[in-house]
């Protein structure tokens, strides 16, 4: 039987990170605060 060449090859889905990862990053950003005190830098993660 003749091969069908008209069929489009499967296109790879666009690669995207998981929503979970995005959510984590956004929550991290909200939680992180950088405090500067007398030339010193402190990172605080407040959940």
């Amino acid at each position, binding site marked *: 039987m003749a091969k069908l060449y008209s069929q489009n090859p499967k296109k790879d889905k666009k690669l995207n990170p998981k929503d979970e990862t*995005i959510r984590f990053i956004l929550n991290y950003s909200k939680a992180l605060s950088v405090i500067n005190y007398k030339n010193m830098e402190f990172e605080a993660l407040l959940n």
Partner: protein
Amino acid sequence: MRQEIISDAILVSSYLKGDETSLEILIKRHKQRIYSFIYSKVYDRDVAEDVFQDTFIKVIKTLKRGKYNEEGKFLPWVMRIAHNLVIDHFRKNNRMPKFDNSGEFSIFSVLCDSSLNAEKAIIKDQVESDVRRLIEELPEDQKEVLVMRMYQDMSFKEISERTGVSINTALGRMRYALINMRKVIEKHNIILTN
């Protein structure tokens, strides 16, 4: 629609002023390019996910510390961070399974197999048979005490009771047995080490 109009630079500056949604827009705008770039290097969804996450953690930290000064070049900057983290990932993975013995510390100096290898087992057998032959050369009374003490693990009290001599005599015979064995070893240059 409005999201498409706002430039990265404006979003970055509004994020720096505390607008968290700007970051969300930036991530959603560039996530596919950044993630695809990472995946094209690591070819593993989970690793790509980790590197992507670490990339943005670094981006967030740098922005919040006020260290970002590449206005208008947000995406190339993020891509460079991702690229560096991909390199770090490969470096770490290359290093992990290897034991580098060139340094000062060698892991094999603290790790060893307590069981004897074939050569050492043969040497041990040889040494033990040499010692037995030396014992055979001892006078009968000394040999008797030494065998009871060393091979039968008897106390000198038990030895004295078994042989019918005092403990001191048993101790003395043991002492002479060892002295005599040492003499023979030295005389014939017998090496009894493993």
